[in-house]
C-alpha cells in the first residue's frame, strides 16, 4: 500500500539582490518596485532608516537594506531601486540593488538556514547558480530597533 504524500505547500517568492547576495520575500508583501527617488530626511530617525519618500501622497519610510544585512557594495551593472513592502498595515520601502523575478516554489525545495546568518533568514532556496536567502522582513527590522538590539 502506498501512503499518499500530503500536498506540498507553495510559496510565491519575489527575489532581488543586495550586494553580491540574492534574497527573497513573500510576493504578497510586495506592493511595488520603484526607481530610486529623492529621500527626505526625517526627524528622530536613525540608521538603517534613511528618511521618507512620498508615494502618491503617503509618507513611506525608507530602509537601507544593505546596512541591515551587512551587505557589500552593489555589483557592477546593478539597477538600484526601492522595494515597497507591506508590513502589517504599513508600507516600508527598502533600498535594493536589483530585481530578480517572481517564482513559485514548493516548501520541500527549501534548504535549512545557515547557522551563521541573521535570525531574519528563514530558509534558503537554490536556483543554480544562485542561492536566495528568504527574509522575514519583520524580524529583520525588529532586530534593528533599539529595544531589540543584539538579537538579530
Amino acid at each position, binding site marked *: 500500500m502506498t501512503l499518499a504524500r500530503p500536498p506540498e505547500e507553495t*510559496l510565491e517568492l519575489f527575489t532581488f539582490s543586495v550586494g553580491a547576495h540574492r534574497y527573497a520575500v513573500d510576493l504578497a508583501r510586495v506592493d511595488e518596485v520603484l526607481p530610486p527617488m529623492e529621500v527626505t530626511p526625517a526627524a528622530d530617525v536613525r540608521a538603517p532608516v534613511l528618511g521618507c519618500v512620498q508615494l502618491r501622497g503617503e*509618507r513611506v519610510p525608507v530602509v537601507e537594506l544593505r546596512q541591515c544585512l551587512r551587505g557589500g557594495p552593489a555589483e557592477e551593472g546593478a539597477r538600484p531601486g526601492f522595494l515597497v513592502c507591506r508590513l502589517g498595515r504599513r508600507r516600508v520601502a527598502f533600498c535594493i540593488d536589483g530585481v530578480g523575478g517572481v517564482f513559485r516554489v514548493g516548501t520541500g525545495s527549501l534548504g535549512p538556514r545557515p547557522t551563521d546568518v541573521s535570525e531574519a533568514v528563514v530558509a534558503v532556496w537554490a536556483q543554480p547558480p544562485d542561492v536566495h536567502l528568504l527574509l522575514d522582513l519583520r524580524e529583520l527590522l525588529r532586530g534593528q530597533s533599539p529595544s531589540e538590539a543584539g538579537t538579530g
Partner: protein
Amino acid sequence: MTKPATVRRSPSLADRLRAFRYQPDEDVSFLSALPPPTHGQMPLAPVDAELREYLSFELEEATYAVPLGAVLEILRARLLVEIPRAQAPLLGVLDLRGTVTPVYDLGLGLGLREHIRKVAGPPEECDPVPKEARILVARTAAGPAGMWVDRVRDVVRVAAASIQPVPPGAGAVVGRATAGDKALLLLELERVLR
C-alpha cells in the same frame, strides 16, 4: 534554590515560514520607531470601501487597466529576440537583467488586432517601434511576462464598489470603471495568456 534556566526553543522551519508569509494583521508594533505615515496606517476598510490602484494604458484607442500590484516594470518598447515558430500572441522574448522574459501582443490577445506586429528578429525585417509604445512587465503564475501596449497613461485609484461587472464572455475584461472622464476596461492578464 536555583531557578531552572529557561531553554529558548529554536523556531522550526514551519514557524519561520509562518512569519515569512505576509499577514495583514501581523504584529508590527516595533515599527513605531519609524516615521509615521502621513495618512495613518493602511485602512482596515471593508472590501466595498476599498480603493484599488490600477495602471491604465491605451490599446487601439481604448483605455485598459491592470492592477498596479501586478506590474513589476514599465519598459520603453524595443525590438525583441525572435522565437522560431512562436505562436501568437507571443511576440518574442527580451533579456531582463539575465532573465528571459516572454513578451505578448496584448492587442492581439484581446482580439483588437488581426495581425501580429513584427517586432522580433532582424531589425530590417521589423516594423518600426512607435515612440510611445511600452512593455509592461507583469507577474503571472508562470513568472514575469511582458505585455506590449500602445501607450501608458497613469495610475488611477478606483473604489472597489464602483467597479461594474461585465457579462460572461468578455474574455480577459473582468470589469468596467471610470477615472475622471475616461472609461476603463479592467483586465485580468492571466486570462489573456490562456
